[in-house]
Each structure stands twice: as C-alpha cells, then as structure tokens.
C-alpha cells in the first residue's frame, strides 16, 4: 500500500508530471531566450511559456467537423501520459539506480515512440489535408531516426552488457563516464542528432513546418488540447536529453553539488540543440531520411565496431 502511494506520488509530482512540466516550460524559455540572443533580440520574459500555457487552457476547444472526435481528444492525453511515465521511469532510476525491472531500457525506447505516434494520431484524426500530410511526414521521420538511435543505444547496452538503465548508471559510477571513449563519443553524436529529430527542432521540424504546412498535425488543435501538446513537447525537452545523459554521461545525481553538475550537463545538451536549431535551415523529408539512413547509421555502426574492438 505504502509502495503504491509512493509510485503515484512519483508519477504525479516528482520526477513525474509536475516537476517535468514546470522544468520543461522553464527550458522552453531558455530555448526561446537563447534563440532571441542569437538573433540579436531581447527575447520573451521568464514566465512567457507559463502565460502561453495558461492562456491556451482558458481558450475554447473547437473540434473540426471533418475530424474524429474521440481520437482527436484522446491523442494529446496519450502523449502526455507516455511522456510522464517516461519521466517517472528515468527519474526514479536516476535517483535510485537499484530500482530496476528487466529490460527497462527497451520499455523506455518503446515509450519514446508514443509521443510522436500521438501527434500522428491527432493529425490523422483532425481530418485536415495538411495535418494528414504532416502526420505522414512524422511517420517517415520516425522510421528515419529510430534506426541510428537504436544502434547508438545498443552500443552502450553491449558495452555494459545489460538491459537495465540502473546498471548502466552504476557501471559509470564505478568505471567513470562512458563519454571518455572514442566509440562512445561517436554514439553520443549520433544520439544528439536523433535527439534533434525527436524533439522536432529545426533541421528536422519537417512534420510541423510552419511556413509550408502550417504546423502540420497541430493545425486543427486549439485551446486546452493544443496546450497539452505544447506541454508534452516541453516535457520531451527534459526527458529525452535526460535519457541520453543517463546513458552516456553518468546520469544525474541529487546530492549537494551533484545537482549543479547535473544541471550543467543538461544545459550543455540543450544549448547544443538550440544552436543547431538556429544555424540550420529546414531540410526536406527525403533528405532527412537519406541523412539518417546513410550517414547517421554509418556513424552508429562505426561506433559499434569500435566498441567491439575495445576502443
């Protein structure tokens, strides 16, 4: 009973829904502020993402007449739940590496597919041609980046010889972080590229291209449903880098100075994402597929071979 209460608390408050959403909205502000500074602007005030969210919450929710109501409303909730679950598993494992179940990395990989899938579902359910186009691009992009991402993650799994995130973090506590080895640096680079696509940031924001297909799958969403999608994207901004840091960079610690160091690691990853976003134009979907299936996959395979050779 006590355990159950603890799990619910972990899911809803820390490190689940509440913590990740607040932190994610703050990170969205960091993103917008850094972008503004790169473009020589002043940028939005600190609470801007919160204002945006509360405003969306107070708006009307319109359901398109061509759409399917149930799927249209259910999709954002599915995405939010999956992201929260993801945050809970990764967070709890980082706080206490002893917490594990068989193959939690595999579960995390599957859960990470759910948020893009929920966007795809919402896009198809809204019945707008542009949304459907965006949703189909999202599927193609997913097919593209999943392959190199899985190979990069598998490199770590083979190196440590386990399927559990807790074991990987403990291994790094004993043997030093994985990021010091050449093969792991290569895999990390591949993971960062896939991170860019998973977050839907600029070179790979093909599915939501504002100026050609008008935010694609989110086009028909309004009010609270749009707010939930935006919140989900903000939470992904926390969760996916957190997973990559846990895999390659020793995870995060919640003791005294460890918090600062973890925050710094996280900020480095986020600032890399924002800088890539601000210095690159959007590419076409076929270019993205080609990039992920040739160069990124090649890089990941090279990392895997280097790892087996012992570098």
């Amino acid at each position, binding site marked *: 009973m006590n355990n159950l209460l603890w799990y619910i608390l972990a899911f809803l408050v820390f490190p689940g829904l509440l913590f990740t959403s607040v932190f994610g909205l703050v990170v969205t502000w960091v993103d917008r502020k850094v972008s503004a500074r790169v473009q020589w602007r002043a*940028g939005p005030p600190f609470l801007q993402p919160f204002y945006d969210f509360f405003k969306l919450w107070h*708006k009307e929710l319109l359901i398109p007449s061509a759409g399917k109501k149930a799927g249209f409303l259910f999709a954002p909730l599915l995405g939010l739940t999956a992201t929260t679950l993801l945050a809970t598993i990764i967070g709890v494992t980082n706080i206490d590496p002893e917490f594990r179940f068989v193959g939690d990395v595999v579960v995390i990989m599957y859960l990470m597919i759910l948020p893009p899938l929920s966007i795809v579902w919402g896009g198809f359910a809204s019945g707008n041609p542009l949304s459907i186009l965006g949703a189909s691009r999202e599927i193609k992009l997913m097919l593209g980046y999943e392959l190199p991402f899985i190979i990069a993650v598998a490199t770590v799994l083979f190196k440590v010889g386990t399927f559990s995130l807790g074991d990987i973090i403990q291994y790094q506590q004993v043997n030093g972080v994985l990021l010091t080895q050449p093969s792991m640096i290569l895999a990390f680079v591949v993971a960062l590229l896939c991170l860019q696509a998973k977050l839907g940031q600029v070179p790979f924001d093909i599915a939501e291209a504002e100026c050609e297909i008008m935010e694609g799958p989110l086009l028909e969403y309004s009010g609270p449903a749009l707010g939930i999608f935006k919140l989900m994207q903000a939470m992904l901004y926390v969760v996916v880098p957190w997973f990559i840091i846990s895999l390659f960079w020793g995870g995060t610690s919640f003791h005294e100075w460890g918090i600062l160091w973890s925050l710094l690691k996280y900020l480095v990853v986020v600032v890399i994402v924002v800088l890539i976003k601000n210095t690159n134009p959007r590419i076409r979907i076929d270019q993205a597929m080609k990039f992920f299936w040739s160069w990124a996959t090649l890089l990941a395979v090279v990392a895997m071979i280097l790892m087996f050779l012992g570098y």
Partner: protein
Amino acid sequence: MPKLSTKWIKKSPWVYHVGTGGCNNCDIEILDCLTPRFDVERFGIKLVVSPRHADVLLVSGPVTYHIKSRLQEVYQQVPKPCVVACIGACACSMGIFKDAYSVAGPVDRVIKEIDPNAIFVYVPGCPPKPETMIMALVKALQKI
C-alpha cells in the same frame, strides 16, 4: 457556455494575419513588426499560422465582397475569446476605398453581422507605423 477568461490573452497574444483586400502596404508593415528590430516576442506576441491557435486577428484592408464570407469564416474558426485588430485606415473605416463598387464595408461592420459582441482594436494610419501597432496592441490588451 461558461464565461471564458480574457486575463491571460494580454500576456500572450498570438496573432493571425488576414489580408482583406488592402493595398498590401499595411501587410508589409505588419511583417515589419515581426522582424528582430522590433522584437514583439518581448510582449509574448507571436505570429501563428493557423486561426485555431490565434487570439488576435490582424485584419488589414477594406473588406471586399469576395473576401467577406471568408473573413467571417476565419473569425468563426478562431477559438473565443479573441480580439479583432483593424490595422490601417482601410480596415477601420474603408479609407480611400470608401464608396468603391467592390467594397462590402469596414471590418467591424462585417464581423458584427455574425458576432455582435466581438472585441475590436482600431489602429489608424495609412499605413500605421510598426511602433504604433505594437503600442496599440499592448495598450488595448491592458484595457480588456
């Protein structure tokens, strides 16, 4: 329907731009507002691409007969509460197009046909300066 609060809109007005047959000069001035020089993101103003996401409709130009039904449709697509900003003399009062054979009326009259309670902001000028538009929007939203 429950009363929807306008409290948060003034903190993050997302704007959607509708051209209704002006001379295109106002539209260009609107685009000027969105450049880094004026940086409207300071006030949380953001250009969105779908009327479903919008809080403020920036309408420029007198409403021609062709565009009238479209403007009304776009207005209905915007989730309420929302504000209509009439940019330029044309949108406020038809300006130089007054009494032209192709013009259906100024923006407020056209929109009041379908929603008598719509909220309007008028920004006169031919075209108004970007500074004027930003100031009008920020001031008007404080008053709602």
